[in-house]
């Protein structure tokens, strides 16, 4: 069966510090991978998605970047965090098919930038 791992669960970082959140998927190959952000427990905003290694699409301009160094690994990064980067970050995967499919979400990372 497929599983998705996301870490850390919580993170407190000072403004201006770097960020690296990691997500890995097991039990599947060539998944579509996604990073979403959720503010104040409401509404999920798509940040990045990837359909393959090294292929990243950004949905909104921001202080963050994403990378996919391996097929089942997706990383969210920032060189210098802003207060506005605080939020609940969710990684998700979906099978790569020709039809729209449901996303499977990780457990999330609560990021607080102080």
């Amino acid at each position, binding site marked *: 069966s497929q599983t998705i791992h996301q870490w850390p669960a919580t993170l407190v970082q000072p403004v201006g510090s770097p960020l690296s959140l990691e997500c890995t998927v097991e039990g599947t190959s060539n998944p579509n991978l996604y990073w979403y952000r959720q503010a104040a*427990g409401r509404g*999920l905003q798509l940040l990045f998605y990837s359909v393959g290694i090294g292929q990243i699409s950004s949905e909104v301009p921001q202080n963050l970047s994403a990378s996919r160094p391996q097929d089942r690994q997706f990383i969210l990064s920032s060189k210098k965090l802003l207060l506005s980067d605080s939020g609940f970050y969710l990684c998700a995967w979906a099978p790569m098919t020709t039809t*729209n499919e449901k996303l499977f979400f990780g457990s999330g990372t609560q990021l607080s930038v102080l």
Partner: protein
Amino acid sequence: GESVGLHLPTLSVQEGDNSIINCAYSNSASDYFIWYKQESGKGPQFIIDIRSNMDKRQGQRVTVLLNKTVKHLSLQIAATQPGDSAVYFCAGSGGTSYGKLTFGQGTILTVHP
């Protein structure tokens, strides 16, 4: 692009009642819709989905209805239980947003014993 919204931000029901959560979408090219349940501090969990070639789909205690004419879908939960208390999100994809789900803002469901 896709715009998905909800009519009510909160819904309170008594245990045992049926709950109905509504959602509207704007993109007529959307062909896939899904409902998620999210408990505090956790990632969203899949409840049920429906494709645009269907009007209704049933699961265990849940039913999703899709009205493409008015671009509306709803989630019905039968015999609501305290464990159903959570935030419920609808999401849709299709057309130019293929493979990418666009989420509504969520409805907070509170079930009173």
